[in-house]
């Protein structure tokens, strides 16, 4: 958790405190942007813009505990915007997701993601629609709770649960198909 006094100092316009905040959160922010965009340069641009927004709008932040969700929301929205600008934003209608019939109990032989299959997993992740990939990245890479993901993505808790499950199911399906 971010030190509340640090947030207060940034609210007062203290640039040294802002630099401290930036140093302590930049890798986490970068992971989210990179996880969504899969491009280091784009992720860096997004992060830079996100920190400018943080500095200019931090007065709107009510509590220091809310920083994690608020910061995640800024980065996620900016990443979606960048993805749309680049014409890479992928979305998928709900009925198409429910059509993914694979279940985790199919294929009784051992399922493993070996080192050499990591490339396949990265490709499978890119195949996921942006909103599903974002939910999965927030959960798996940055340990966001369902409540925090719901605040970041502006979706109900139930949708977070189903979105994460669908993301995992699509990923599993794609790895099984192996046609990437």
């Amino acid at each position, binding site marked *: 958790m971010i030190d509340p006094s640090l947030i207060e100092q940034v609210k007062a316009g203290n640039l040294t405190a802002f630099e401290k905040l930036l140093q302590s959160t930049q890798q986490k922010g970068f992971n989210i942007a990179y996880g969504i965009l899969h491009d280091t340069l784009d992720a860096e641009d997004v992060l830079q813009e996100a920190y400018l927004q943080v500095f*200019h*709008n931090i007065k709107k932040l009510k509590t220091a505990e809310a920083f994690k969700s608020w910061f995640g929301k800024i980065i996620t929205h900016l990443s979606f915007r960048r993805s749309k600008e680049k014409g890479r934003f992928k979305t998928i209608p709900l009925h198409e997701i429910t059509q993914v019939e694979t279940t*985790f109990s199919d294929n009784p032989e051992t399922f493993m993601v070996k080192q050499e299959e990591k490339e396949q*997993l990265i490709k499978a992740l890119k195949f996921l629609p942006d909103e599903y990939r974002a939910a999965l990245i927030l959960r798996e890479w940055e340990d966001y709770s369902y409540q925090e993901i719901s605040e970041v993505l502006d979706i109900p808790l139930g949708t977070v649960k189903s979105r*994460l499950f669908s993301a995992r199911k699509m990923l599993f399906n794609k*790895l099984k198909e192996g046609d990437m």
Partner: protein
Amino acid sequence: MGQCACREIDLSAYLDREISPELSSVIEEHLQTCQKCKEALNRMQLLSKAVQELPRPSVNPFLATKVLGQLQTEEISETPFVRLFESWGILSLVALGIVLVPFGSSLFGLMYVLIKNLTIVLNLVVNLSWRVPMSPINLALGAIFMAGGILAFYGFARLYLTMARKELVS
């Protein structure tokens, strides 16, 4: 999985420790006897672990310098003079609104006629501009209109950039 007491979606939430204690006990009890669900959970765990272990590049070590540099540049450019331009943008919008509300339909009608007869209008403007005498008053009026146009354009650009930065943050 149809005949099972637990659903895969609940197993996924169980894996994330995001399930009520009651449902959690039901699932744990079920897992003792259901090999199929046990395997499904095991695969979910493996997949989750594999995603967690994916390599992530390190952030640019100069990010802080870049951001702070940009903030300082903004601070320098945020002079009262620049703020005046921003308010000029807002004033132009207000003026446009005041003109458009009572005279909007007539103005659009006039614009329609002007666009329809664009060639004639252009000829007329060129002819008239040659006939207007080069008096100091006319030159001053021309300069004022041009400066006003440039200021309004700059003001709108500043206004748009400020709004674009604030739009995402609530």
